[in-house]
């Protein structure tokens, strides 16, 4: 009785599937786990094919490699070609007489790199208390700076066709640097545009 009751919720067992899997296992055990010559050749050929297929890069227009990061609970992506390095923010020197979006400067192996808080630059409401302890260093031939992120999720390839132009929630400055939004959603920013923007450059001296 009790056994029947226990089995009751699992009534929908696909017996044919179980048989098929058992058969597979039996086959594998009999062959000592090694696929036969034909199967081996097929697998190797498929593998070679996969390896030989060139990885599609950003430049071919179909996909874009982005570094994915979290900022204020939202997911962002940025073209990987512009990322020089990522490191945890351990020490930071704040600079007076700079706009709020310049968080400060850090020492990267002897080189001074400025760190930008995109939330402040984009004028985003600062809801929640982020960790903001990763720095993503962006660079082009003429510009280098770091941006702050709560965490870095990794690199992924996004097909351009998947990108939507915008979301109604994306307002203000952010829209200007928008490359597109994925379905997830992840906001992909145009790193080249950010790097080339004179608004991010500080060049001021005290009037006489």
């Amino acid at each position: 009785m009790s056994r029947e009751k226990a089995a009751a919720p699992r009534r929908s067992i696909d017996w044919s599937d179980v048989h098929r899997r058992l058969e597979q296992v039996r086959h594998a055990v009999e062959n000592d786990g090694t696929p036969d010559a034909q199967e081996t050749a097929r697998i190797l050929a498929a593998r070679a094919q996969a390896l030989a297929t060139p990885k599609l890069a950003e430049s071919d227009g179909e996909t874009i490699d982005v570094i994915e990061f979290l900022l204020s609970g939202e997911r962002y992506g940025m073209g990987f070609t512009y990322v020089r390095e990522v490191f945890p923010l351990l020490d930071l020197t704040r600079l007076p007489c700079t706009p709020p979006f310049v968080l400060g400067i850090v020492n990267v192996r002897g080189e001074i790199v400025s760190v930008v808080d995109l939330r402040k630059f984009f004028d985003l409401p600062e809801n929640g208390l982020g960790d903001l302890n990763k720095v993503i260093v962006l660079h082009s031939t003429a510009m280098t700076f770091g941006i702050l992120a709560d965490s870095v999720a990794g690199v992924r390839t996004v097909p351009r066709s998947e990108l939507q132009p915008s979301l109604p929630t994306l307002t203000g400055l952010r829209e200007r640097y928008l490359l597109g939004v994925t379905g997830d959603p992840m906001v992909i920013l145009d790193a080249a545009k950010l790097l080339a923007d004179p608004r991010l450059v500080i060049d001021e001296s005290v009037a006489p």
Partner: protein
Amino acid sequence: MEKNDEAFRKRLLATFRNEAAEHVQALSSGLIALEKTAAPEERQGIVETVFRETHSLKGAARAVGKGEIETLCQSMESFFSLLKQGKASLSAGQFDLLNETVDVLSALLGSVEEAPTKAQLAAVRELRQRLSGNGPRNTEAPAPVVRNDIPPDAQAPPSPSPPEDTAGVAIGPTMGKTLPDPPPLRGGDTVRVPVARLDAILFQSESLLAAKLTAHQRVMDIRAAQSDVIALARQRARIAPEARALLRRLERREPGNRRKGDTRLRRLLEYLQQEDDFIKTHAMRLEALAKAAEHDWRSLGSTADGLLDDVKMALMLPISSIAEVLPKFVRDGSRSQGKDVDFRIRGAETEIDRRILEDLRDPLIHLVRNSLDHGIEKPETRLAAGKPRRGLIELSASQIEGGRIEIVIADDGAGIPLDKVRDVAHRLQLAPPSGNGDAGSTALDDAACLELIFQSGVSTSPIVTDLSGRGLGLTIVREKVERLGGSVSVGASPAGGTRFRLVLPLTLATFRGVHVRCGEREFIFPSAHLTQVARVARQAIATVENRETIPLNGQALSLARLAQVLDIPADKAQARTESVQLVVAGTAENRIAFQVDEVLGEQEVLVKGLGRQLRRVRNIAGATVLGNGRVVPILHVPDLLKSARHAAPSPEPATDADAARKSLLVAEDSITSRLLLKGILETAGYNVKTAVDGLDAYTQLRTEPFDLLVSDVDMPRMNGFDLTAKVRADKALADLPVVLVTALSSRADLERGAEAGANAYIVKGSFDQSNLLTAIRRLL
């Protein structure tokens, strides 16, 4: 696969561009030299060189499929080969043509990644036609005697004409210098290394200096530990005789007379004796360790210093590497202004740090431009004044005492019209009018007057030409040179013209700086800009015309608070001290005493730029990396002096009921959250200290009284739960209110926090400063 081809082509083009730029530079220098050289055999040599350069450039262009460059080189090559065959000489027009060709080549190279524009192709076509149509014909007749009256800048129809240069002028041995010597070390002896890679090596070598300082700190730490152990050993030595006596008494006691605790006591005493030996051994081991660490420190130090010196040497470049653009610059400039100017470089082989050299390019070009534009007169004027019609600008570089480089740019032009400078200065209200009443007392003397030309807005040029005259240039020159740790001065050259003298460090040198603290920030004042560091009684501050002043050495100096000038929070505790710490900056009557919270010391610092995003920040000249790896901004004193004068006069910030303020400790490992929390709480009126993790917080809690603890949960070494538990277990701290701030928001975490003894729990995801402040207010 196409993509790979594209990438390969890009790399190829980049390589080509670098190589081609060198050829074009050599070509350009060669043409300038050729134009100035009269001796036929020398000319022949130069023609050979430019021919070779053109040929190499042609080959390189063909290899990367830049047809337009190749064909243009082809035409020029034929032109030169004709020149080579005979004793051909070139007319001014032909030189112009060749120079024009070089300009077009440079333009083509500038956009080598793209296909040439229609305009560029048209220019190439036109130049090719002109090159083939105007080739040098062999002038069989010997060159006629040169006359002085041929206008050098006449755009004469290109025709074979005698060299317009006078044979006697400007063919000094220095002339040869502008012609690049054939590279002596092509082959296995030199290696091309990308500059970026060299820079990376330099950065890393510099960071070894930090390692050196750290190693020294280790030595000190070990020595401190050693002295502790020695102190312990001494104390033990004092009680050792008593322990021994006690032990002996125990041993002498009759077996029957023994008491209950005797065995235990004896064991304890024996243990103490063993421990004495143990402590002695440890003291010796620490001694050995300290010696070894000292040795390591010394050898690391000498290796690091040696390496850094070598790397710096590897980054030295001769002055010629930037000066070689100048001859062409002078040539083009003098032509367009109808002037006749010779340019010489002396000491072009003098070497200087590449980083300095890079920043020197603009100032040098500016100074030469200045001489060209304002110094050298038109030929007629010169002849009328009894000077040779051809003006001279000379750049000479040499190493002077103290490992410094002197660069002098002198011309034999009209010099700086001091009366005009005085007028302009008067107009700008920089100085009293000249010749106004009492002589001497108000009018500027000549030296001070010359100094004025470095002020922005002072230009004596009545018209703004496209070259100069905006009155900003020399200010920028001074600023750039001073930022490199150098100085610039101006005077009259022996030939009656103007003479600018730049003195620069050989390598991007360290300089001495005074390390100060202001609130929580630290800054470096370059010692060169300071006249004094002093501490004066707070009562001595007097208010004169709504401005605070302070008497120092019998003079009243304006007082400015550094925190206020920089607009940063000041140390509030400092406002209660009886004396104030001052750093006096500026010169003469331009001095200002800056009040800082603490002077931490004077030390060697190495200036670094603030990165490419921060080109120029108000009041900040750069940054330096201290021995402990921390980055400290270096103050820009001229800016500070200006800012201090702008700053609204305001009295000492009110010291509100400071003593009654509650003090809070914030423990948070993320630096940004730490700063944010601190900011919020300070704005709310609390005294806030911070800790980087649980252990740090616990140590601080035990050494200083706090009214409340705000702690993150997820921290290294000791997390927030453990910290809370530890606080609750500590008798002295058991009643301390604890607020946990965390990213963890599950019910289980909440319970864990409560279990550990937290009074409030705030979730980061929904963090809102009013929540935090309400919670804190409730608890205090």
